[in-house]
C-alpha cells in the first residue's frame, strides 16, 4: 500500500517537535477563538496568517489547519454554555446543546460535542487519506444543477420533519430566503432589497449576524421573560467520575448522530461552495428525520448535539480536499488557507499531490494528530466552561448581551450589524412567542445564497427548461428524493383525514 507509506511519512513529519508544538498552540488558540461568539475559524486563520512566514510552509499550514480544527471544537462551547453560537458552523449545536445545559447537563453536551467532533474529524481524515483523487472527481461532477438539487434536499429535511407546524415551517423558510436575497445579486450584478437605502444592506445580511441576534439576544430575552430571571439550572458538578459517566452516555445516546454527521458532513464539505455550516445543519435535519424519537430533538437530545458537531469537523476536513486537489476552496476558511499557500509559493491544484507530496502528506498526517490533541485539550477545559454556568442568570444575561454585541461587531466592524443583531433578537423573540420555528429561517439564510444562484445558473444552462434537474444522472435522484420528502407530510395528512372520514 503506497498510500500507507506516504501516510506514515506524513505522520512522522507532523510529529516533529516544532510541528507538535504548533499543533498544540494552534488547537488551543483555535478552541478559544471558536468559543468567542462571532469569531470563527475564518477570523482566526486570517489574523494569524501573516505570522506563518516564520516557519516553513509545511509547518505553517499544519498550524493554520490546527486553528481551523480547534475552532470547530470550540464553536460548540458557547453554543452550549451561553446559547450563542460560537461560530456559524456551530449554530445547529445550540438547538439541543442549550436545552441540555439548562437541564444541568452541560457537561454531557460538551463531552458529546467533543467526542462527536473527534469521530467526525477522524472518519473524514481516513476518507481523505484513502480516496482523495476519487472524491476530487466527484466534486467536479457537481455542477450548478447538482448543487441546487442538494440544497433542495436540505430544505426538504427541514420541511418534511413532521411534528412542527408545517405552514409555519414554510413561512419561516421563506422569511429566511427573503433575507438571503438582500444585497448584490450575483447573476445580474444589480443590488436588491437595499432596505431604506441604507448602504449597509449592500453587503447583504451576514449569517453570523442573524445567528447571534436570534440565538444570543433572542434566547436571552426568552429566558428572562419565561423565568422572570429566576432561572435555576441544576448546579452542574464536575468530577472525574462524572466525566466518565458522561462519556459513556454520550457514546450511547449520540452515536447515531455522530455517524450521520461524520459521513454527511464530509460529503457536503467536499463539494466546493457548500462548507461546514450547511453540512452541520443538513446533518441535524437528517438525524432528526430518521430518528425514532424526533420529538426529543430541540429539547436536549445528545444525538442533536452529536450530528452537527461531527459534521462540522468532518466537513472542515472535507473542505480541504478540493482546496488541495483542485485549488478551489470549499469554505471561507479554506479560501484564506489557499491564499496562504500562494504566499508560501505553492501552486494549489491537481499537481500539488505529485509536486509537493511531502507538504500534502505532512498536512494529512497532522489531521490525525490535531484531532487527538483537540479532543484531549477540549476535555481538559470542559470543567472550566461548565463552571461558568454556575454564575447566576442575572450576571450571565448582561454578559451574553455584551458578548453578542462584541461578536457581531468583530465580524465586519460595522455598527450597522449591531442594530441588525438587536432587531433580529427582538424579531426572534416574537416569532418564538407565536410559535414559529426559528431553525428553518436560519437554514434558509445559509442555503439561500447557494440555492438561488445555482437554480438560476441551471436554468440559464438549459435555456429555462426545468427538466435539467431530472435528466442529469446525479441531479435527478437527488431532486426526486427531495420532492418525495417535501410531499410526504401532505400524504400523511391526507391519509389521516381519509381514515377519519372512513372511521
Amino acid at each position, binding site marked *: 500500500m503506497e498510500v500507507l507509506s506516504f501516510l506514515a511519512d506524513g505522520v512522522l513529519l507532523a510529529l516533529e517537535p516544532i510541528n507538535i508544538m504548533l499543533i498544540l498552540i494552534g488547537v488551543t488558540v483555535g478552541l478559544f477563538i471558536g468559543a468567542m461568539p462571532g469569531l470563527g475559524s475564518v477570523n482566526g486563520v486570517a489574523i*494569524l496568517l501573516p505570522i506563518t512566514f516564520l516557519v516553513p510552509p509545511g509547518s505553517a499550514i499544519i498550524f493554520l489547519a490546527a486553528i481551523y480544527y480547534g475552532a470547530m471544537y470550540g464553536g460548540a462551547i458557547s453554543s452550549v454554555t451561553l446559547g450563542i453560537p460560537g461560530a456559524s458552523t456551530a449554530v445547529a449545536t445550540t438547538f439541543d446543546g442549550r436545552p441540555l445545559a439548562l437541564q444541568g447537563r452541560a457537561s454531557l453536551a460538551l463531552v458529546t460535542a467533543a467526542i462527536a467532533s473527534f469521530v467526525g474529524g477522524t472518519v473524514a481524515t481516513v476518507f481523505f487519506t484513502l480516496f482523495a483523487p476519487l472524491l476530487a472527481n466527484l466534486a467536479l461532477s457537481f455542477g450548478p444543477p447538482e448543487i441546487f438539487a442538494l440544497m433542495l434536499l436540505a430544505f426538504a429535511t427541514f420541511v418534511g420533519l413532521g411534528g412542527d407546524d408545517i405552514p409555519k415551517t414554510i413561512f419561516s423558510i421563506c422569511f429566511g430566503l427573503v433575507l438571503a436575497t438582500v*444585497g448584490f445579486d450575483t447573476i445580474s450584478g444589480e443590488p436588491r432589497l437595499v432596505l431604506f437605502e441604507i448602504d449597509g444592506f449592500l453587503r447583504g445580511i451576514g449569517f453570523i449576524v442573524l445567528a447571534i441576534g436570534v440565538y444570543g439576544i433572542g434566547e436571552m430575552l426568552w429566558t428572562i421573560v419565561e423565568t422572570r430571571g429566576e432561572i435555576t439550572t441544576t448546579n452542574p458538578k464536575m468530577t472525574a467520575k462524572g466525566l466518565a459517566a458522561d462519556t459513556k452516555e454520550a457514546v450511547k445516546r449520540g452515536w447515531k448522530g455522530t455517524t450521520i454527521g461524520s459521513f454527511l458532513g464530509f460529503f457536503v464539505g467536499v463539494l466546493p461552495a457548500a462548507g461546514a455550516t450547511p453540512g452541520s445543519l443538513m446533518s441535524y435535519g437528517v438525524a432528526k428525520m430518521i430518528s425514532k424519537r424526533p420529538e426529543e430533538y430541540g429539547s436536549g437530545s445528545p444525538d442533536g448535539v452529536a450530528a452537527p458537531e461531527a459534521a462540522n469537523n468532518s466537513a472542515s476536513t472535507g473542505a480541504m480536499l478540493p482546496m488541495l486537489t483542485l485549488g478551489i*476552496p470549499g469554505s*471561507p476558511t479554506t479560501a*484564506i488557507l489557499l*491564499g496562504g499557500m*500562494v504566499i508560501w*509559493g505553492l501552486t494549489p491544484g491537481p499537481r500539488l499531490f505529485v509536486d509537493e507530496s511531502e507538504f500534502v502528506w505532512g498536512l494529512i498526517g497532522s489531521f490525525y494528530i490535531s484531532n487527538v490533541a483537540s479532543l484531549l485539550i477540549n476535555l481538559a477545559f470542559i470543567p472550566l466552561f461548565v463552571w461558568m454556568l454556575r454564575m447566576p442568570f442575572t450576571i450571565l444575561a448582561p454578559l451574553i448581551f455584551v458578548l453578542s454585541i462584541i461578536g457581531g461587531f468583530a465580524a465586519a466592524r460595522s455598527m450597522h450589524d449591531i442594530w441588525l443583531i438587536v432587531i433580529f433578537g427582538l424579531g426572534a423573540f416574537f416569532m418564538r412567542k407565536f410559535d414559529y420555528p426559528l431553525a428553518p429561517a436560519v437554514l434558509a439564510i445559509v442555503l439561500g445564497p447557494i440555492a438561488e444562484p445555482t437554480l438560476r445558473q441551471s436554468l440559464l444552462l438549459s435555456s429555462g427548461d426545468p427538466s435539467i434537474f431530472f435528466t442529469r444522472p446525479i441531479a435527478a435522484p437527488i431532486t426526486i428524493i427531495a420532492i418525495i420528502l417535501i410531499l410526504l407530510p401532505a400524504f400523511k395528512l391526507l391519509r389521516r383525514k381519509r381514515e377519519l372520514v372512513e372511521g
Partner: protein
Amino acid sequence: MKLTKRLFLGLAASTAMAALPVTAMAEDWSPKRPIDFTIMAGPGGGADQIARFVQSVVEANDMTTRPLVPTNRGGGSGAEALLHMKDARDADHTIMVTLNSFYTTPIRQEALGVDIETFTPITMMGVDPFVLWVHKDSGITTFEQYIEQVRAMDGEFVMGGTGSGQEDSIVIAFMSGAYGLDIKYIPYDGGGAVAKDLAGKQIMATVNNPAEAKGFYEAGEFVPLLAFSDERMPAYPDVPTMKEKGHDFSYYNQRAIVGAPGMSDEAADYYRQVFNAVYEGDAWQGYLTSESLSPLPMNEAETRAYWTTQVENHRELLSALGGES
C-alpha cells in the same frame, strides 16, 4: 489572542527573516493608530490574496509603526469599500487594495456618488492580464478552432464568468462583438468557482486571470488560447494575443494601493515609501513572476492620468455592454 499575535510579530521582527531591508522612516509623519487596510473583495479572491501577501511582507519586516488591519469589504462589487473610503473619518489611516470594480462600480452605480479621481494614488503594484481558456477534452487548441466551434454551436456554447459588468464579461463582450459570436454566459460569484466548473466541464470556456487557472494549466487540464495582454506573456510564450489577431484590445485587472480622498500629502508620502519598498522587494517581485502579473510602475501624476483614461475606457466598454444585452 492579541497578545499571542503581538508576541509572534515581535519574534518576526527580531528574527533575520527579513526578505527586504527595513527602510528607516525618519519623517515628519507616521501613523498614530492602526491603519485601516480595506480589501475591495471577499476573502479568497485575487485581490484578497494580494492584500494578505502585502500585509505579510509589511508585518514580517516591521515596515509600519502601526499595524495594517485588513478588512474585507467586498459587498456590492466593491461599492461597500468605495463608500467606506469616500466617507472615511480618518483619511490619513485609511487605504485600500483595488481591482477593476474600482472603475466599473462607480460608473454602474452613479447613486453612490463616488468619484475615484478624488482618491489618493499610493502605489501601483502591477496589472493582471486575462487569458481565454478551454478544457483539454474539448479538443480545441487554437483561437480559430474556438471561433469555429462557437459559431457551429449557434448560441449553445457556454462560458462562465464572474458576472455582467465584471472584468471577464467586458472581455467576452468585446470578443463576441469583434467576431460576431453568440455565447451563453453563466455568471458565478468568483473566479475560483468558474475555474472549478471549467475543470468539471460544466462550462466550455472562461476568461480568467492566469493566477486562477494556473494549477489546472500546469496539470495539463486547461489550454490557453488567447491572451488579452499588450504583448505575449513570458509564462505563456506560445499563446497569441488579441492584438496579433488584428484587434487593438487589451485588458488588465488593476492591482493597486490607494488612499482615501483627502489624505494629507505627508501621509500619502509615508505610505508611498512603505509600499514602494514592498514593490521593489524580492518577495513581491517573485509574486509578480509566479502569478504572471505585469509590472506597471507609475508615479502620482501618471497614476492620476491613468485613472482618467481607465474611467473613460470603462465608460465606453460598459455602455457597449449595456447596449448589447
